[in-house]
């Protein structure tokens, strides 16, 4: 094989190795990008909705206390605003079921919320219930806590999945780094081997040829100028051999 082909193949192999490593890293990084997006879409959206639901529930509870204390107008307005926000957040959670079993959790939230809703849907201010703290603590508050607990469970489920997905993402990041590490190590080893071959098949024969020519000039001995192989250096050695033979036969320089 010719020198040109050998050198070209060396660089070509290095280039292919780096290209493959780069392509795989790009592929993995793109995948990570998509995973981050789905992480935000799937889990974070549900967590955020659950937080909004809890906040709405607490506002409704405050509204309930206002009603109990006789502040009918402020109480109703607080509760209605909070209910609208709760429904909005619940709608988000209901339309973002991405974890196995999440639908059961969402249904349980609505069930407990409906139970809680029954208490403030009916009039409180101006009725015997107004100021009845015992009624509030025995019936309303436990229902409120139950609804809050269900929403918390939904949030925990999404939290756990978020953690799991994030851990998987860490693994994917390592996967994206790995081709680079392998390419660096491979390139280093490859460079050492390439250098060894260049020294063995290019530099050494040239040195040997140069020493052979000098020896020929001193002693007239032509055997030191032979180089085995079928590449350009062997061709050069053969040409020098022919030149020396011509010089010997004709006596010309």
């Amino acid at each position, binding site marked *: 094989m010719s020198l040109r*082909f050998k050198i070209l*193949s060396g660089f070509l192999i290095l280039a292919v*190795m780096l290209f*493959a490593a780069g392509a795989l890293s790009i592929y993995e990084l793109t995948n990570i990008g998509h995973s981050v997006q789905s992480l935000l879409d799937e889990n974070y959206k549900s967590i955020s909705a659950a937080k909004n639901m809890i906040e709405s529930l607490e506002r409704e509870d405050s509204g309930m206390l206002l009603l109990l204390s006789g502040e009918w107008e402020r109480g109703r307005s607080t509760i209605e605003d909070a209910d609208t926000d709760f429904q909005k957040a619940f709608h988000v959670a209901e339309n973002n079921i991405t974890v196995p079993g999440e639908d059961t959790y969402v249904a349980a939230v609505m069930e407990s919320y409906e139970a809680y809703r029954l208490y403030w849907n009916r009039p409180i201010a101006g009725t015997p219930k107004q100021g009845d703290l015992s009624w509030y603590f025995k019936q309303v508050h436990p229902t409120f806590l139950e609804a809050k607990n269900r929403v918390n469970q939904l949030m925990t489920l999404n939290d756990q999945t978020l953690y799991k997905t994030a851990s998987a993402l860490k*693994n*994917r990041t390592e996967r994206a780094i790995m081709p680079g590490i*392998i390419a660096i190590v491979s390139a280093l*080893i490859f460079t050492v081997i390439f250098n060894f*071959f260049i020294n063995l098949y290019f530099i050494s024969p040239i040195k040997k040829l140069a020493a052979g020519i000098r020896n020929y000039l001193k002693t007239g001995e032509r055997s030191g100028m032979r180089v085995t192989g079928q590449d350009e250096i062997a061709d050069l050695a053969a040409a020098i051999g022919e030149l020396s033979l011509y010089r010997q036969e004709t006596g010309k320089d």
Partner: protein
Amino acid sequence: MRPEIVMRYLGFILLFNALFLFISSVISRVHGDSSFYSLIFSATVVFLFGIFPLIFVPSTEKITNEEGLFIVVFGWILSCLVGVIPYMLWGEPFSFTNAWFESVSGFTTTGSSILSDIESVPKGLLFWRAGTHWLGGVGIIVFVLAVMPSMGPAAMILYRSETSDLAINNFRYRTQKTLMIILYVYVGLTALETIALSCLGLSLFDAVTHSFATIATGGFSTKNASVAHFNSPAVESIIMIFMLLSGIHFGLLFLFVTGTFRKLYESTMVRYYVVAILLGVSVIAANLYGGFYGKLTDALRYSAFQVISIGTSTGFANADSSVWPPLSQLVLLFFTLQCACAGSTSGGIKVDRIVLFGKALRRRIFNLLHPKGVFVIKLGGTAIDDPVIESALVYILLYMGILLASTLCITAFGVDLLTAFSGAAAAMGNVGPGFGLVGSMNNYGQLSDPVKWILTVDMLLGRLEIYALILFITIRRWK
């Protein structure tokens, strides 16, 4: 020594690895799993490394013994390193140590795994895992030599460097014919088992991977519960038959297939091998019957499978033998040390050396009784030279010495004695499962990294039959 020549031959080995990686990537693509890019990238890198020395270094058929030994030892180590790449690219749970353990365990046909959930690993990677067994089964170099058209005198030197003297026995042919016989028997057995398992309802993927693991006496299964997953006496029977066959010298199997039935029956090693297994099965079945299994058929089924699996160094499991009574465990431990015949794909001390040990022991007793008597040790009517017997005895001594040293080192890392000894014995014998924490239904993932490294050294020592590595280490002192 000419490093460029060593590199050229290592190039061939790398190309074979690249070919298997490529096939695995195709399987990954077909199944649409997540290991495709890891496998194709690995195949590319390994192919480039393999092809490079072939471009530069001109072909030569003449190599020295020293170069041959270098090619064999580096061939194994390099293949194990290559095996690490797809695992690491795929990611969790493969840290470098875990990937190295899985790769060495695959190529040396040990079959120990760090995986706790094998079924979650993509099929492409599982195929590569089984492929490492198949490549390493008859020895990577032997495999390459058998498949390559001709490497002239180099083939003989490489074959002798890779194979022990005991294994070379029963092959009275030229190297190239011997290699072809090995290849025919190896591929033939694999194909037959694949067909048989497919007929029993296993998917082609499961049939091929389990055949790779059986014929190479490896033991990597694609199922978490190993062969117990199929819960099929028919599947277990087929696997048992092929495990048993894979533990017999391939030269004798070839003679049997080509019509010379007598040789197989006349072989002292084969007779001892079969009798030992029958005896082992009987003792364990008797021990398990009543207490462990109510039915005698169950006791026979599980004891036969476990004895053949361990006794051929395969390592498949159809029951959790680590909970069996101590007598059964001790019998299995004996088989972990002994394993099957030389010239097969099996590991361990080998039946041949145990037979020679027995004969040497008998001669020693006769010598004590008749001090002036001359007693010749014969095998199949042929007198065995003293150096051969001495070599076998030294090997057994060395084997046990290394095993004890490994056990000591492993216990130093806080591992209990049963786990340490059986784990080291299973690694040295390329068996796979041990007892205690590393029982047939457990895995090696829970062991610490240094322990895994010790075990991989044991696996390589066992696979290269110790001497090759010792010669390699002392190569500078050669004259």
